[in-house]
């Protein structure tokens, strides 16, 4: 259990949010031209990092907006929060 600093509402309990998985997976520009391997890569393969991971969250029981979080998955500590479309921090 941890707190998430929603960029729109401020700090709230994690249970107010829905995790949206790995961030920055770009939807293919030309889906019709993708091979089966590329589809598998896009749809199913995940980094599933133990350590610092970039991910999407939705404040589903609050403002219902999506944003990005940088979190260490080994101890659930959040390193940074940034809005959709913003450049991820280094």
């Amino acid at each position, binding site marked *: 259990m941890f707190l998430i600093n929603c960029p729109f509402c401020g700090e709230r309990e*994690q249970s107010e949010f829905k995790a949206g998985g790995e961030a920055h997976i770009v939807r293919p520009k030309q889906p019709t031209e993708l091979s089966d391997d590329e589809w598998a890569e896009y749809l199913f393969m995940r980094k599933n990092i*133990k350590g610092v991971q970039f991910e999407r969250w939705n404040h589903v029981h609050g403002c219902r907006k999506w944003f990005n979080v940088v979190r260490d998955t080994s101890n659930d500590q959040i390193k940074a929060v940034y809005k959709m479309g913003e450049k991820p921090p280094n």
Partner: protein
Amino acid sequence: MKNKYSIFSLIKNALSNHENWQRAWRDPQPKKEYDVIIIGGGGHGLATAYYLAKKHNIKNIAVLEKGWIGGGNTGRNTTIIRSNYLWDASAGLYDHALKIWEGLSQELNYNVMFSQRGVMNLAHNLQDVRDLKRRTHANRLNGIDAVYLNTEEVKKFCPIINTSPDIRYPVLGGTLQKRAGTARHDAVAWGYARGADEMGVDIIQNCEVKGIKRNGDTIDGLDTTKGFIKAKKIGVVAAGHSSVLANMAGLRLPLESKPLQALVSEPVKPIIDTVVMSNAVHAYVSQSDKGELVIGAGTDDYVSYSQKGSHDIVEGTLSAILELYPIFSRMRMLRQWGGIVDICPDASPIISKTTVKGLYFNCGWGTGGFKATPGSGDLFAHTIANDEPHKLNAAFNLNRFVSGDLVDEHGAAAVAH
């Protein structure tokens, strides 16, 4: 040679105050090279080593475990065993395991306390009723014992369930698999470890893999905290950490690792003599031989390796338990813990070769791997020894995420994810 466990060995050792029991397994240092190295000393890994030695006559095997054997998910699950899965491929896989469970204590000469007390899955809405009836029919076509019960029959089989129509999610019916049940999880790891050790398998604890060395497209060996170890073949059975190991070998897996929680109550006299699972309200409960209620909660929806889960998940599960079993309202919980489960997009496991020659993965068991331990070990051993899957695990290959031939078991997985 191991001494056989029996009533006579028990009496003999009782007379010497239990001070002279033989070690159940050795504590060896790693050799320079092995024919097969299994990464992960949980139930699945130890079973794999056991069947490699027993059925495939491979003797030069090591099992590497970063902590102690059975200290991961093998010692953290709620010990439920059943095979009532929907699809033919899953039915074959899980019922293969269940058949091995039925003779496992005798085979290992180790009491795994397998108890076929039945597993009941409850329906709480009309869609549940339809799904569970469909699953019962599918099970019976596959030769798996399953029956559908109406509300009165559910109440008769487990009288403490609140079947009042006035509760928030009333019990509309359920399925029952009588051959299903529970086993003692630690004993499974220890029994397989003892059996594998007897056949010469080196079980190396406190040995963490730090890197997987490749020679082009062939496996070379492992960098570990006990030095470099060469291997002709490597089988990875690392549950929640499978993606971490795949990354070391330059592979990607379709997995997400999430915390799954369970808890036990203070021990009480026998009150529930079966296993009751309820997917819709997310609560399942059984009673251990010590008398504790064993309660399974759900997964968190975010990736985490912290072996802690969120408090609200436990709260949700316990409120459902109390609605279904008002008799437990004064019970106190003794312990709560989390394990990291590796979840596949189709809620089915991967027992497969990879694009690297000599590297095999057994992972993606998600929230329900314990029940499959013996079958998983047997089929993974077959896959490693023959470099080909057995027909029972052929559908559970990695390539299904490319071909689209998924085995969608979200309904039968019983833990929502």
